[in-house]
């Protein structure tokens, strides 16, 4: 994985985080342990722990403290994926069977709740109420973002503000909080904590917009699902919102429904791609990245800052 080269100096610390993760999910029920391990070991990028560890380098770094925050963030992310697969009725994730598909919805719900509880138990090693308030608020916002996504499905009249708020809640805040909490855990200066939060927020926004663009531009093999799947499921993303500025194209896009034939959907994807919406959405994603880089410039120069910058660049360049 490309990311790994960028932060190889963190490898030993990441291994400690990995050990924490594996220890965290050992339960009395062998099914619960197996189900939790099944997802944890299925090749996640561990991008949130990486952000935590890097942000923590701006304070009085102690891996034995920070590892709890890093593992917590990964566990929360994992728990939300387990439940997302029930929401999306998904059979595959990262090329492997989902928990709900390998076992069933019930096992997936219990496993997600178990992992979530383990996350909070681990976070309770951090004796800082503010850190807990930030994480708790992030988790509530994350759920609100998911609920909004369902509420706004096939709502072709939604405005851009709703989209940006949704991706902020769904994606950007967890990355922003990962950075902020890493810095808090090591007692970094408050101004640095805030900058790291904003860096994570901008990177997260850029990342999600790029994800929404790739849904149209990447191949089915790269995505692991047909192109345009988001739109087909009713998720109105930035490229669609931009394309709908053209009234004629909006009328065509409004005909999308879940049972739409592949050929008809293909024609709409082509129309969106030809409209210039992809290029405009890419520019907006890049603008967020620019903002992220500007935040980094104000941080003390060190290896962590350089790596954060490289990760952000990678996000901008990613093809799938």
């Amino acid at each position, binding site marked *: 994985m490309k990311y790994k080269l960028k932060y190889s100096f963190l490898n030993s610390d990441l291994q400690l985080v990995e050990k924490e993760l594996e220890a965290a999910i050992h*339960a*009395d*029920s*062998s*099914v*619960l342990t197996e189900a939790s391990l099944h997802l944890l070991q299925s090749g996640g990028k561990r991008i949130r722990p990486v952000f935590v560890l890097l942000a923590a380098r701006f304070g009085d770094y102690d891996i034995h403290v920070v590892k709890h925050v890093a593992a917590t963030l990964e566990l929360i992310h994992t728990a*939300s994926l387990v*439940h997302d697969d*029930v*929401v999306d*009725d998904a059979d595959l994730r990262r090329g492997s069977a989902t928990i709900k598909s390998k076992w*069933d*919805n*019930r*096992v997936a*719900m*219990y*496993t*997600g*709740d*178990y992992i*979530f*509880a*383990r*996350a*909070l*138990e681990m*976070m*309770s090693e*951090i*004796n800082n*109420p503010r850190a*807990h*308030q930030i*994480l*708790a*608020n992030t*988790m*509530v916002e*994350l*759920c*609100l973002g*998911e*609920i909004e996504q*369902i*509420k706004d499905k096939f709502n072709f009249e939604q405005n851009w503000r709703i989209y940006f708020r949704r991706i902020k809640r769904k994606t950007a805040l967890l990355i922003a909080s990962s950075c902020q909490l890493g810095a808090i855990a090591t007692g970094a200066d408050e101004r640095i904590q805030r900058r790291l939060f904003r860096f994570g927020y901008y990177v997260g926004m850029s990342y999600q917009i790029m994800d929404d663009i790739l849904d149209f531009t990447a191949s089915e093999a790269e995505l692991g699902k047909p192109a345009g799947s988001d739109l087909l499921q009713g998720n109105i993303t930035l490229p669609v919102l931009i394309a709908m500025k053209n009234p004629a194209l909006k009328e065509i896009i409004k005909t999308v429904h879940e049972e739409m034939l592949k050929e008809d959907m293909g024609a709409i994807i082509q129309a969106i791609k030809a409209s210039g919406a992809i290029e405009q959405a890419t520019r907006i994603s890049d603008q967020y990245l620019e903002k992220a880089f500007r935040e980094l410039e104000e941080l003390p120069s060190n290896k962590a800052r350089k790596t954060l910058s490289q990760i952000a660049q990678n996000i901008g360049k990613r093809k799938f």
Partner: protein
Amino acid sequence: MLNIINDVKELRQLIKTKAHHSYLQKYIEEPFVDEDKLLLLWGLFNELEIPDNERNHYMLSTMLVQIALDTHEKVSNTNVMGSPGLLKNRQLTVLAGDYYSGLYYQVLAEVGNINMIRALSSAVKKINDHKILLYQYTLNNIPDLLNSFRAVEASLIYKIAEYYQKPVWMDGAENLLLLKRLHREKEQYRETGQSLLVEGIRLILFPHIAMEVELSKEQLLQVENTMDSCIEYAIQSVKQSKGELSLANVELHQRMDDMLSFTELKVNSYVKEG
């Protein structure tokens, strides 16, 4: 001295207000507040020297966890892909449970009691561990089976009582809530012919008979008698706990008596009906 009637009413309102989400409530059932668990919590906190505001936060967060867990219990395995309404209901049920979990953490984080966060998350962990043990029928003796039901029903209150070093409330909550659950299992068995308790007992008594194979009358009677013995055991445990609990408030005492006699009445009526 706290006033139980006003307090519980106020708490119920507080919980409902906190858990309210207009869009969720449009598509899924309103969160259910388990009043018996609320009463037990109230009884426990009534014995503690904790400021009112803080006490309410703890009860609110504990009930929000319970609501979150109960909400996720409603997520079934049924295939709903052909029915957009049912699909949406399922999706929002999953997310609502997660949302209530987030709220419980948010309430405790606001109070800043990290030890309580640890206690409640440890309880949630235990509850889900035992839910899977029950759901997967992996228990091979009756005490373990009852222990899992006990853990699922009472771990939240148990962990709080443990945190405040109130062992009598730890036992009291476990015994009372076990009895309530067994009673519910029996009722469900009578109504639908299915129950985790009955199926669990069946697999313990007759591990070599596949679930799809019908039991003989004698075997079935043996399963039902074992279920009744479990309930009788739970009744005796509750009676013992009731004697040990120093219930300062008459209303709470009365409520526990009512719960016990109601259960006994039900059990007796089943016996009479054969």
